[in-house]
């Protein structure tokens, strides 16, 4: 049991969904990332997903690609991302999101242990399927680190069951086919996916939905479809890039309000 699981339990008891924003470490700068992270927790977000940027982010759309690129241009490294997490750890629970080559080069054991020390309690690696995850799975188990796998509309029930057995913390549901990136509407297939996963999961693991969520209305819909949490990345990054931190705060507060279950 770590702060990730505790957060989901606590929120459920309060009839509230879990709000999980994603930001890229080092975009636009280290100081800004820390400032943004702190503000997000102040606004009431429950868990922070901190992205360690990678040069070739195949699961990401233009917003997060550009965000990663900016961070890398500014000299972001795995080590610096660890420092950012360390600075934010007392403000709330943090998970790292990155591509597999990053922890692979750092050294898997070294990566998990250092991340844990820096207050990171979960890992999301979008290009690591369960078939390749055995070593990381064992390391995460030994270090009480949640290993959060992604589930897509294309994942059949048999595979879904297998993924659930290897997962901890929460299940990350990809709302629709495609990459990250804000979308206009919540698709019908998202509702179907949530229902199918809840059916299959049987409450074993909390479910958070991500990819494409860009409005408080989306958050409301998804929580009412039965999801336990909502992840918001590109839409948030767009607000930060295009506006002020105040606008971001207003946006996040509205999102948090929408996590109240009807």
């Amino acid at each position, binding site marked *: 049991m770590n702060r990730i699981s505790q957060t989901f339990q606590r929120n459920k008891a309060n009839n509230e969904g879990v709000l999980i924003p994603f930001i890229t470490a080092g975009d636009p700068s280290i100081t800004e990332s820390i400032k943004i992270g702190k503000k997000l927790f102040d606004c009431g977000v429950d868990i922070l997903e901190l992205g360690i940027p990678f040069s070739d982010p195949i699961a990401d759309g233009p917003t997060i690609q550009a965000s990663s690129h900016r961070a890398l241009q500014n000299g972001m490294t795995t080590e610096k991302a660890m420092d950012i997490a360390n600075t934010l750890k007392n403000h709330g629970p943090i998970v790292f999101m990155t591509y597999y080559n990053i922890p692979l*080069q750092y050294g898997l054991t070294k990566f998990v242990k250092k991340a844990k020390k820096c207050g990171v309690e979960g890992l999301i690696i979008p290009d690591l399927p369960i078939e390749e995850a055995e070593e990381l799975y064992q390391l995460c188990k030994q270090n009480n680190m949640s290993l959060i796998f992604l589930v897509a509309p294309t994942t059949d029930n048999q595979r879904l069951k297998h993924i659930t057995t290897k997962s901890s913390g929460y299940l990350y549901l990809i709302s629709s086919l495609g990459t990250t990136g804000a979308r206009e509407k919540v698709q019908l297939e998202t509702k179907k996916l949530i229902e199918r996963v809840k059916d299959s999961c049987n409450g074993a693991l909390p479910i958070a939905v991500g990819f494409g969520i860009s409005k408080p209305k989306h958050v409301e819909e998804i929580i009412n479809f039965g999801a336990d949490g909502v992840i918001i990345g590109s839409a948030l990054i767009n607000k930060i890039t295009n506006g002020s931190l105040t606008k971001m705060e207003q946006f996040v507060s509205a999102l948090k309000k929408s996590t109240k279950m009807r």
Partner: protein
Amino acid sequence: MTLPNEHGKFGKFGGKLVPETLMTALKELEEQYRHFKENDSFQRELSDCLKNFVGRPTPLYFAERLTKKFGGAKIYLKREDLCHGGAHKINNTVGQVLLAKKMGKKRIIAETGAGQHGVATAIAAAKLDLPCEVYMGTEDIERQKMNVLRMNLLGAKVHPVTTGSKTLKDAINETMRDWVTNIKTSFYCIGSVVGPHPYPMMVRDFQSIIGREIKKEILAKEGRLPDFVIACVGGGSNAMGAFYPFLQDRVQLIGVEAAGKGLHTKKHSAPLNKGTFGALHGAYTYLLQDNFGQVQLSHSVAAGLDYPGVGPELSYLKKSERILCASAEDEEVIRAFKLLAKTEGIIPALESAHALAYLTKLAPTLEQERIIVLNLSGRGDKDLQSIQKREVK
């Protein structure tokens, strides 16, 4: 031992390191590929296409003047430059696009670096009546304009890729993103032995017709196997195609990478020579990366070799010391390019000229009884403009 194993692994290389959305599609692709591989009707259709459309078998040409010039081993050139489209790429695309058609896919997508694979995919798609979209980095669009024109004429839509380094690796990223979004209707036709399983295996299998023909042809001409088979290495498809049927034989296999401005610089494309173990584009392989795992930009005068990664099977063959990994720098490549034109009346692709550059060093050192087969992976018409630009500077 058959490689890859059921997880798509060649030793510790290969595998499937892709987003969850692609996993089911990859499983389906592998099942369908294995099914059609054993299907007589599919094989007949493919053979017919390779013979009557692609122009196979390609000649194994004894380069008499080149041999005499070096005064050493006998030099044979496998003429993949004579394939329809001008390069070996089409051996793979007709196979994959035919498979796509059988699978009921409605749309073909592909990445391309130099443009040869894009053109070869557009050719196959036109012949088999499927819409085709190709992703190409804007850097590459600039240096290989003729290929862009050809793709357009063949009915393919070319999407310029402006992200990252605007070259092949970014085109692959963009094509993968398209596939992730359109997975149900679309077939991703990858151009080399890279990517997640089953692609490295599938592309190798389709390209192995090269090596099988070399074997048959050299036995007919010389009564024995060659001592050396040499090929340039970008992603590795022409090399794996030439090498694969010889893996169990007593034949020295040599892959020649792009050393660009020199292996001691940061301006090369030589992951087998200078790369380290990592994960790129869905597979464990050797790649050019910094200490933190950020993929580095590669450089080569030859757009088709300009890729910071390499096929996982080649990484495995290097690690197990089955292949020798050499390299050639831009300047010596251009010299070799001109040499073949003047000595044998053949204009090679700049990519293939890398293998030729190495040949110029190897051949003179060998006795005249030795036999070298060099895979001439493509023709160099596409390169004339950029060579000319360099001369003018």
